């Protein structure tokens, strides 16, 4: 699904890299704990999170994630936007809760890729 459709589904605001709305997204992960994103997420191009700090952008960079969506009405700081622009990472924000945002995307065909917990 192209990112512009995701933006519409989540009624999201675009904060950086508005020219990248044609990125194709197939899978995503949702987490507020970056440690878990680093340990469990696999090949997901998009992160949904309610956490606001620059390490969210760093984590996305290290994990090859091209898009971060901030949920629950959280907005990235200007420092985070600057870092994301440098790295070419799209930042979106939505007023939806984490549960609802993930549910809307899952229903529309976005899946999650990661290690199952044993």
């Amino acid at each position, binding site marked *: 699904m192209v990112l512009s459709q995701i933006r519409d589904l989540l009624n999201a605001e675009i904060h950086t890299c508005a020219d990248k709305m044609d990125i194709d997204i197939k899978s995503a992960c949702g987490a507020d704990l970056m440690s*878990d994103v*680093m*340990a469990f997420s696999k090949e997901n191009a998009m992160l949904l999170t309610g956490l606001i700090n620059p*390490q969210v952008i*760093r*984590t996305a960079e*290290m994990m090859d994630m091209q898009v971060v969506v901030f949920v629950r009405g959280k907005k990235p700081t200007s420092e985070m936007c600057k870092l994301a622009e440098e790295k070419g990472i799209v930042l979106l924000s939505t007023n939806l809760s984490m549960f609802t945002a993930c549910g809307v995307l899952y229903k529309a065909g976005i899946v999650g890729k990661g290690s199952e917990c044993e």
Partner: protein
Amino acid sequence: MSSLIRKEYDIPANDFSRAGEASSNVRKLLTQLGVNPTIIKRTSIAMYEAELNAVIHGNGGKARVEIFEDRIEILVYDEGPGIADIELAMQEGYSTAPDYIREMGFGAGMGLSNIKKNSDKFVIESELNKGTRVYITIYLY
């Protein structure tokens, strides 16, 4: 065999906003060298976790990165308080990170095991009140 490229990075203490810059630079370098993306990702994750550990637990430190024809060798070291029980620290879920680090989304006790998982060779040495050294080797082929 001597390394083809050798880089040193400072990891500043208590500067959480800058944590990850060294790893980001190495990532950029490996991309420029045309290294396989899977190898770049493993290297990035392992080094970033080690760098965060140095910021969170080691009062900052340094990283030395050497690229050989067949492998990447990373040493992240600090002169912090050291680890009392390495075996315990390696256990998933065990962490001594303070609350403010947890509020920032880290300190879940996954770091060291995640470094090991993403490395081909992983060695950790630590001495109380002297510091900690983390050696990471990742083969290019």
